[in-house]
């Protein structure tokens, strides 16, 4: 599937992540995080796994993370993808 419209989920609170998804020609992941230096690779791996699980092949995913644990990242991204609808 591809992201067909803009959607978001999550918050900017500590230990949470705010996820923004929108249509894009390819798959783009942008990560802002207060723990980027230590954990960017793990955040990216988690996002890629969730996108794979949902069969997402195109869309821009931007996350603003404040140290969310991986199940929170998964839940927020999943919610944003469901809100964006599937095509």
């Amino acid at each position, binding site marked *: 599937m591809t992201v067909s419209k803009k959607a978001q989920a999550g918050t900017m609170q*500590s230990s949470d992540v705010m996820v923004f998804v929108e249509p894009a020609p390819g798959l783009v992941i942008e990560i802002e995080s207060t723990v980027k230096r230590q954990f960017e690779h793990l955040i990216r791996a988690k996002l890629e796994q969730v996108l794979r699980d949902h069969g997402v092949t195109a869309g821009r995913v*931007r996350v603003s993370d404040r140290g969310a644990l991986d199940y929170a990242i998964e839940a927020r991204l999943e919610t944003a993808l469901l809100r964006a609808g599937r095509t």
Partner: protein
Amino acid sequence: MVAQILGRAETERARAFVEAQGLAFETGFDELVGVYERDALVAAGARAGDLLKMIALAPEQRGGALLGTLVTELVALGYAAGHAALFVVTRPEHVTSFERLNFALLASHGRAALLESGHGLAGYLAAHRPLVRPGTNGAVVVNCNPFTLGHRHLVEQAARAADTLYVFVVREDRSQFPFPVRMALVREGTKDLSNVRVLDTSRYAVSAITFPAYFLKATDDVAEIQMELDAVLFAEGIAPSFGVRRRFFGTEPACATTRAYNAVLKRVLPRFGVEACEIPRLETGGAAISASRVRDALRRGDLAGASALVPEVTKAFLASKDGAEVRRRLLGGGGSHG
């Protein structure tokens, strides 16, 4: 509870709250948001386009989760309205609070700081990297509303004193001549100068973000703070990436806002290793050529008078169908900058 503040009574409550925190309440926002606890307002903030402003928290509530609650709501509303990146102007002591929300500092100067969410400036610089040439380079930042013989003179003089001259055209579209037209006229009108590169400023110079006063015509203290932020952002954030060691600008005989801005550039830029070079304006008939003189002539319907002050490329545009449309709007319109 987070809620959008609507209606006169609630807006007045928010005004009293914002003013009690020592901030000026300005109307002219897209959304005003409040956080309530047991019916009492404990935080408020507004979004105007891509700028967050009037972010106010009750003193006993600072340092906790409240700022995150408020900014989440403003960012969510902003994203829904089409703004992927947002800016905030705040006091320097609050910079770390916003950095904890993943905002990145663009410029901080004494009394005010400017931050953005997203990687806007880094993306802008990366996108323009192919234009960057080695050497001792120069820059001019111009609105060119429209491109005049005065601008041409400034660019020519500056190009002689720099290895490569970057001409930054103000992207903000609040001028009578739309941005794509201003950009095209400058490109076409300087293409014979081999060491000149023309590019747009995005939101990072003389925009409503760095410099609302330029568009609002105020010359008070707030305006000066904004001008200083704009100058710091240019000197620290933009100039180094382009190898810019000199910024050129014309003397300003008429407009008080631009004159104040020139004074700020002269004061601030050298502190960051950028030389501020003021170049005397080109004159005709005993008065400096300026875009506002051109617009004044057009407002009087004096196309010949206007054409005498502009290069061929602008003359041709004024005579075109699109140019006639701009002239028609000017005939009934008000003032702004050049």
